[in-house]
């Protein structure tokens, strides 16, 4: 396959040297958060152009969804965004429920929000850890923050393991409700874990916020202006860090988000530090929502339909819809066309990482090579979701 190596967006610099260097970053780069190939055009140490090549992790998810029944696909849907598996499952089952006009019991809705928010905590833990590790030894010893964050993420994964039996790909949702009810003692474990994580967040912040190295690496680096953010169509924490006050959980409530109080953090700087601050507040707001759910979890059934006994049990009448949920990385959308059978006619994902990644060629040029990983990490792409 011939690839066009001319960068699409370039910046002209006063550069005394005579040559431009074209450098491949990836697809097997340890700091690229996945199989992502960025073709960088360098003038000296400065990047003047970047061309993103994606598709290394393409697994035909959308075609696969046409061949799998509504019963089967939710457990596969978690593989699109494997760092926040609960979100894509939720988008898919919500689409099927909206077409079929299936009511979901209150308890199931609350459990869905509970796992979505726990997942956000787990996902942001991974983001913070890997991002700080990318920026390297400057932060007081390379992998330190990474190991701390993974330690806390493990606690959340342990909770999911108690709830569903799996650590990464859950298959928790089903059309009409959820598959697993809370086991005994889960609420207490959950409270203990989120209390611990909330205390540990203070440690991360104490380690990072006043750290000169950290500020040097993030402040003013990779600025996304409000205008650029709106033009490219980024979403999630990136959008909020650029000064746009938009959160689907508040502005277009789905599941049962209208029952809970939470703040939507907004920063106006649009740089890496602003994105860090938005996510740190989101951590706490997620924990706050989890507490509210645990305080007022209604009793009742967890599914409005009988448990799955056969593959063709769930049939969705003719219709099409688009559902969107606020994942840890932004808006995850699912466009579903049903034709009355047990399988959808067509399904399309809108991956949050995919749209967010489109901003890279606009913000990277002008920065040095070392800043590329910092910017890429602050965008927080998951390549399962980019390539699907």
């Amino acid at each position, binding site marked *: 396959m011939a690839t066009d190596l001319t960068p699409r967006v370039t910046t002209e610099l006063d550069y005394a040297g005579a040559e431009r260097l074209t450098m491949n970053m990836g697809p097997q780069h340890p700091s690229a958060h996945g199989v992502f190939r960025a073709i960088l055009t360098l003038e000296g140490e400065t990047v003047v152009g970047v061309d993103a090549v994606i598709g290394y992790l393409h697994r035909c998810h959308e075609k696969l969804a046409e061949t799998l029944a509504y019963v089967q696909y939710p457990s596969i849907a978690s593989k699109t965004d494997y760092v926040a598996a609960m979100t894509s499952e939720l988008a898919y089952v919500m689409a099927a429920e909206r077409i079929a006009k299936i009511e979901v019991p209150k308890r199931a809705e609350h459990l869905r929000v509970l796992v979505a928010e726990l997942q956000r905590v787990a996902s942001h833990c991974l983001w913070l850890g890997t991002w700080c590790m990318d920026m390297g030894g400057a932060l007081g010893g390379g992998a330190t923050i990474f190991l701390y964050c993974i330690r806390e993420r493990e606690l959340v994964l342990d909770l999911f393991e108690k709830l569903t039996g799996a650590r990464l790909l859950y298959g928790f949702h089903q059309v009409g409700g959820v*598959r697993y009810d809370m086991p005994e003692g889960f609420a207490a474990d959950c409270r203990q874990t989120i209390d611990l994580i909330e205390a540990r967040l203070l440690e991360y912040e104490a380690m990072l916020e006043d750290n000169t190295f950290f500020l040097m690496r993030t402040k003013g680096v990779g600025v996304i202006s409000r205008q650029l953010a709106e033009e490219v169509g980024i979403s999630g924490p990136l959008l909020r860090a650029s000064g746009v006050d938009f959160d689907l959980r508040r502005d277009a409530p789905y599941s049962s988000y209208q029952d809970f109080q939470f703040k939507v953090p907004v920063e106006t700087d649009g740089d890496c530090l602003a994105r860090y601050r938005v996510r740190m507040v989101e951590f706490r707001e997620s924990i706050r929502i989890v507490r509210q759910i645990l305080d007022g979890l209604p009793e009742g059934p967890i599914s409005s339909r009988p448990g799955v*006994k056969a593959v063709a049990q769930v049939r969705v009448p003719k219709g099409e819809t688009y559902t969107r949920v606020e994942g840890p990385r932004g808006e995850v959308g699912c466009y579903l066309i049903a034709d009355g059978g047990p399988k959808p006619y067509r399904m399309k994902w809108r991956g949050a990482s995919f749209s967010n990644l489109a901003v890279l060629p606009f913000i990277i040029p002008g920065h040095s090579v070392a800043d590329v990983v910092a910017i890429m990490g602050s965008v927080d792409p998951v390549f399962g979701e980019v390539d699907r």
Partner: protein
Amino acid sequence: MAKSRGILQETWDVATSVFRAMRISGRNFLRKPVTVHYPDKPRTYPDRYRGLLALTYDRETGEENCIGCRLCEFVCPPAVIKVEMLKSEKRNYAKTFSLELYACEFCELCVQVCPTDAIVMMKSFDMATTDRRELLLDKDRLHAIGETFDASWATGNRLRDMQAPPKKVAAEKPAAEKAGGEA
């Protein structure tokens, strides 16, 4: 940012940053380790752990539970289960039952649909091997796994009971469910 200040100020900033970070590192250094030395110490599994798959025997009669109905074969998303039914007088059996564990994704749907609680998951993931063929499990091996490890909580009937809506709700909407194509 750092250019406007003198070299002394910058050095001081760097030193204090490192000192503050090291203080937190020191605090973590004194905490209890969270890692488990796995092969030496056993890992504790939660009740619902989704691990190796196995077939079960009836505890009372000693007969195998599987009736070869092939529901698990139809529901399996990666299609790793293959079953052939053996017709018999009183009940049916599985003539062959093969499971390609190397392609299994442990979604627990086969357990969920099983009408006789024949296929269950084990609280174990100890299946590391150097030969891929060892992960192609036939009926005998699946039964042997069921005898070796502890089964996890979930069985088909338990899962369906947990998910079942109360009878009143089911009675209220028979029309809706018929339209929804209750199988």
